[in-house]
């Protein structure tokens, strides 16, 4: 997708005015927040598991080179092929080559954010190969020519009537009297259509939630079963994964799995957790004949050793956006990037540079709810602040904001001058506030007063009054 994070403010404005979207966004809170809390409350060890999950990933990141080598060795030993891709372009080229060798005309795809990151679908289509998204949400947005608005609920920005419209538009076999007014009938229709696509696809592409170094396995976690059909029925299975997906062992995977589903959907376990190791064995009755893993860097190795390293612990559960008031207000598309919400506000500048993406880490109230629910204990607000620091250092902060800040800091750093200035200003401002004790308009405060009144000051400042009161008291004491 084309990056449009620099237009965040305009896009957010449009999102706020979009009644359909606003209605759909209510489902984010309804669908995720309370369910997560219930699941977390039911597991006393949840926080201890979070700590351990964090420690496991920190350990991996400290030895990522060694774990990648160990992982590669196991994949090769099990008959698979590992491809290394430094950039999105490299990854696209590698996947296309594998598809061409397999004479693929259609490929099915399990849900994978990383294929969004490398814009794989466009590349395959441009080269005459049809990609078919099989996750229900992904399928719907593919029909609409859209991108996911959420990393685990890609069509959360849509209402069922919109989906019905899309199915009637594209599924020309549908009779007019077929009832598609409810999600259950929409699901049935998608199931029927996609079943044929799985069975006729030449190549199946999935992402990976984990890559297990011990065994060379890729792990996918899904609820629909689409990822499993994708990777089992094609002649070739391609796993697209980024380098930080590595975990050392099956035991470590079990640890992180316990926090993943709970944080994502409030399930104890997702329905299907599948470990795939190499291609089908000589005597296996089914499974893919070829197994390829494309290991993508695309800027991640450069995050190691920086203040953004912790972001590489992310397991893409979506809890941060599910709990974000800004995401609730504007949805995922306003961010104009592959990854929305708090995790996107940190990751997108790392992947695409801060120059065009600076609005994302700024569009946060720093309420900290994202960090408080992050299963991997990623300090998201802190890292957003680091991006603001990078912007400030490089003079990318908008000039008005920068000068306003410098003007304020000039006084804040000079207490005597500050005291003198506010001693004059506040009583005047208080008088203008009048008996209502608030302003509905105030010069230079339009950002505030456009939507709310500004409470007027009481009069003299606290410090001023304190001094006067203190003097009186000392006089009495004498």
């Amino acid at each position, binding site marked *: 997708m084309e990056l449009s994070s620099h237009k965040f403010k305009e896009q957010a404005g449009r999102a*706020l005015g979009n009644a359909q979207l606003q209605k759909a966004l209510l489902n984010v809170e309804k669908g995720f927040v309370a369910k997560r809390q219930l699941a977390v409350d039911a597991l006393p060890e949840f926080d201890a598991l979070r700590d351990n999950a964090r420690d496991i990933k920190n350990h991996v990141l400290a030895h990522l080179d060694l774990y990648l080598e160990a992982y590669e060795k196991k994949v090769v030993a099990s008959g698979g092929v590992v491809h290394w891709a430094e950039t999105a372009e490299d990854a696209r080229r590698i996947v296309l080559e594998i598809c061409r060798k397999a004479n693929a005309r259609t490929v099915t795809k399990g849900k994978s954010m990383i294929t969004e990151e490398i814009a794989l679908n466009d590349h395959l289509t441009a080269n005459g190969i049809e990609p078919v998204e099989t996750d229900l949400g992904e399928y719907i947005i593919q029909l609409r020519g859209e991108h996911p608005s959420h990393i685990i609920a890609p069509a959360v920005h849509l209402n069922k009537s919109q989906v019905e419209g899309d199915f009637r538009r594209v599924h020309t076999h549908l009779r007019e009297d077929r009832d598609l007014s409810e999600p259950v009938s929409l699901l049935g229709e998608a199931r029927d259509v996609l079943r044929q696509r799985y069975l006729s696809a030449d190549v199946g592409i999935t992402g990976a939630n984990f890559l297990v170094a011990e065994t060379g396995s890729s792990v996918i976690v899904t609820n629909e079963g689409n990822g499993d059909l994708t990777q089992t029925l094609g002649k070739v299975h391609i796993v697209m994964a980024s380098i930080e997906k590595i975990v050392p062992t099956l035991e470590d995977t079990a640890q992180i799995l316990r926090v993943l589903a709970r944080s994502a959907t409030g399930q104890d376990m997702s329905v299907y957790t599948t470990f795939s190791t190499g291609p089908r064995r000589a005597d296996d009755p089914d499974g893919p004949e070829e197994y390829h893993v494309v290991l993508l860097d695309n800027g991640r190795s450069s995050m190691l050793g920086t203040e953004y390293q912790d972001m590489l612990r992310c397991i893409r559960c979506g809890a941060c956006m599910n709990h974000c008031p800004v995401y609730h207000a504007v949805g995922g598309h306003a961010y104009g990037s592959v990854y929305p919400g708090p995790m996107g506000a940190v990751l997108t500048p790392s992947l695409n540079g801060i120059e065009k993406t600076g609005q994302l880490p700024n569009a*946060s109230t720093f309420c900290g709810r994202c960090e408080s629910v992050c299963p991997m204990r990623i300090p998201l607000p802190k890292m957003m602040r680091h991006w603001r620091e990078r912007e400030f250092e490089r003079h990318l902060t908008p000039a008005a904001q920068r000068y306003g800040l410098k003007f304020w800091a000039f006084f804040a750093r000079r207490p005597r001058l500050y005291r003198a200035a506010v001693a004059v200003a506040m009583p005047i401002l208080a008088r203008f506030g009048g008996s209502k004790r608030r302003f509905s308009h105030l010069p230079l405060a339009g*950002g505030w007063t456009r939507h*709310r009144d500004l409470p*007027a000051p009481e009069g003299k400042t606290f410090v001023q*009054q304190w001094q006067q009161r203190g003097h009186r008291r000392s006089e009495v004491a004498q």
Partner: protein
Amino acid sequence: MSVKNSESLAPTPEGAATPQADSARPPRVGLFATCLVDLFRPSIGFSAVKLLEKAGCEVHVPIAQTCCGQPAYNSGDRADSRAIAEQVIEAFEAFDYVVAPSGSCAAMLRKHYPGLFSQDGDQQTGWAQRATAFSEKCFELISFLSDVMKVETTGETFKGTVTYHDSCSGLRELQIRDQPRKLLAGIDGLAMTEMKDPDVCCGFGGTFCVKYAEISNAIVSKKVSSIETTGADTLLAGDLGCLMNMAGKLKRSGSAMEVRHVAEVLAGMTEQPPIAGRK
């Protein structure tokens, strides 16, 4: 009652007070009023003084206070944040405790100051150690009363039904949730009714509310609707920034809800008209 006036701009001389009060004398508390309270609502500052003194503290208000530095810090301006932090540390480090009637400013002092002094040279100059030692004695007002001074009740009266918003920094950085509710439960005549999602942000976010005014408005609109649904007649919270945001929105939408800082009610000092006035 011992009230001292620290009118000098210079820090209290070394040795004038050794941090951590011995039991023989009352703890010396430096009140960090916060810029918003100082400028907009001094009555919160006086409520804080009353509560602290009643709890047995000796309260000082150093004049060399302006702001905790959050506007600079959250805008990525580390140089100014640090300069302001040095100023605050110098003005306050001699006290046994530093107390602020704001979760967000207290969290800035307690949780974020040490990180501003993490450069290599800061160990040699002693700033790193000073910032850490300083941060450990900084508290938000209500949690200080409850957790440190072990105040069980403030013994005041308030007639009305209140609802309480958990301001984000206080809640998530300083774990302030039960303390204000417990003290409010001890107020005679006060009825408490919880709003839906009291822990969700009001949309203030410091400069966020001006930089992203439309988004902030959407968030505060939702918050105000949760507040009004409670049927309470007074909204309380522990951070003036959030209170000004919510009060401003309530008044703009014609609500009769009265908005106050929780300290005003706990101190029984509600003579001042509420924040943003009455209807």
